């Protein structure tokens, strides 16, 4: 028998989904996600999600990038190849700003893109939720909650019953490998 991935339930609309997200959070569920065709304002708060650490990852890489840019130019112009260029001093920090700034942005932007992909566990080609035919509606007019089997409170029967009690419909158990 295949491994259980989680339980999927459909909700009526964005408001119902928002409410369900909040109720699950208050009930103590942690490993669950809400799926909707468009972003719903206030969902992060309702689910009690923490801020993504991406900002700090970006800052770290941006600073490293800036230091690399500044260091490279200082080393080239002041230490290894001290040439007089248009009468400027060897350590002409003003002229280093542009490349320093550019590498600051480049490293930061790279960290933003790849950090985002990494935190989202991408790239991946398949997800057990895609076994559900009903779930295809999520890109059109479907609003779903998925509770993962890994959640501490997860129990096939009681979780399904709870989802039903808060307005979930078409409850199905999703099987498949992560």
């Amino acid at each position: 028998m295949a491994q259980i991935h989680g339980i999927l339930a459909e909700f009526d609309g964005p408001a119902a989904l928002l409410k369900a997200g909040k109720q699950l959070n208050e009930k103590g569920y942690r490993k669950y996600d809400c799926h909707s065709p468009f972003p719903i304002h206030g969902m992060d708060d309702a689910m009690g999600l923490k801020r993504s650490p991406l900002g700090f990852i970006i800052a770290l890489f941006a600073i490293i990038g800036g230091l690399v840019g500044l260091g490279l130019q200082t080393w080239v112009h002041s230490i290894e190849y001290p040439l007089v260029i248009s009468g400027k001093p060897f350590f002409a920090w003003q002229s280093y700003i542009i490349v320093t700034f550019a590498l600051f942005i480049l490293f930061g932007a790279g960290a933003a893109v790849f950090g985002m992909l990494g935190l989202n566990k991408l790239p991946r080609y398949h997800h057990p939720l895609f076994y559900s035919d009903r779930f295809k509606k999520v890109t059109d007019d479907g609003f779903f909650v998925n509770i993962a089997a890994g959640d501490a409170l997860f129990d096939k029967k009681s979780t399904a019953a709870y989802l039903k009690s808060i307005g979930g419909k078409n409850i199905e158990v999703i099987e498949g490998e992560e």
Partner: protein
Amino acid sequence: MKVDSKTYLVNEKGSIGKIALIIGILGLALSLVGHFTNSKQFYFSYLTSFAFWASLGLGGLFFTMLHYVSGAKWSTAIVRISQAAMSVLPLMFVLFIPIIFGIKELYEWSSAEALAHNAVLAGKSGYLNVSGFVTHSVIYFIAWGVLAYLINMYSRRQDDGKDTIKQLRIVSGPGMFVFAMSISFAAFDWLMSLDPMWYSTIFGGYYFSGSFVAILAFLIISANYLKKTGALENEIRQAHFADLGKLFFGFLVFWAYIGGAQYFFIWYANIPEETIWFLHRWEGSWKTVSVLLIFGHFLIPFVSLVFYNTKRSRKILLFFAIWILIFHYIDMYWLVAPTLHHGSAHFSWLDIATFFGIGGIFIYLFWNRFIAKAIVPVNDPNLDASLNLHS
């Protein structure tokens, strides 16, 4: 102040207008005394203060037009504040008149003797001359007056129940072009021509970037006041401060970017007629002012507001809004005063007197314009979205 909770009309004016008017009149009266004791210092102090307060009006005009031309929804609840600042701008022509009287004291290009000894300056006299200066300035004020009048008119019609959002957008689109040209040339005429041999094509952008940061700071302070006093307690939400904070932070960086770009190209080319302007701002105690500006107007607020939570904290935002208005004044001082005091910064009591003189009148007019109509656009189709704003 007291506000009707349905129509948002002001029932009771409160005392802000009166207090501001008294401060303004006292400040201007004191400045007038200064005019007789030290007229050169008076005109330079006056120009500094005028540049500061005019930038708030210009920033208000820009913010209002940006609101309409971009179809922004979030700022609908606060747009009447920037509209009021915008409405003061054409009235500031009256406050501009002393500068016309001070042309001889302020601007080297107005002296026939300087022109006789300086061929380059004489070559510029086709643009830089007294009648030209006055004509240009009158044109700027007329342009700003027409824009402010049209926007106010259509915005008022909204209150009467007409949907004028399209007309407001049609005025604001071309208005942006008129604004960009007029603020650039106003900055060239009023501030850049203090050193008539020097030029920087980005100078208008520099003045604009400071203006926009200043109006955002002004909006943060006003919104905070209106929320705190209960006038717009529920209408202005936490999310408005978050959005204002983000714009404020972004345009602080924009200011530094423009200022840095201006410095960088002049430093790179190293042409004496261009570098002299920065030399005047790097001699003696001016160096301290320059460094203070980099830290106070950019680095310290940048590092403080870069975090998610600090941009959204009303207290921290309010602190930096006041902070930035102080540094915006220092920025204006840094643009104007080195022309008068070479070698070292020289503080004068007239700087304070003219600041409060013009400022009092500005706030009085601002307050007067603000309470003259409903303090939020009650029939604006975007108001609902703004009142339910989430960040």
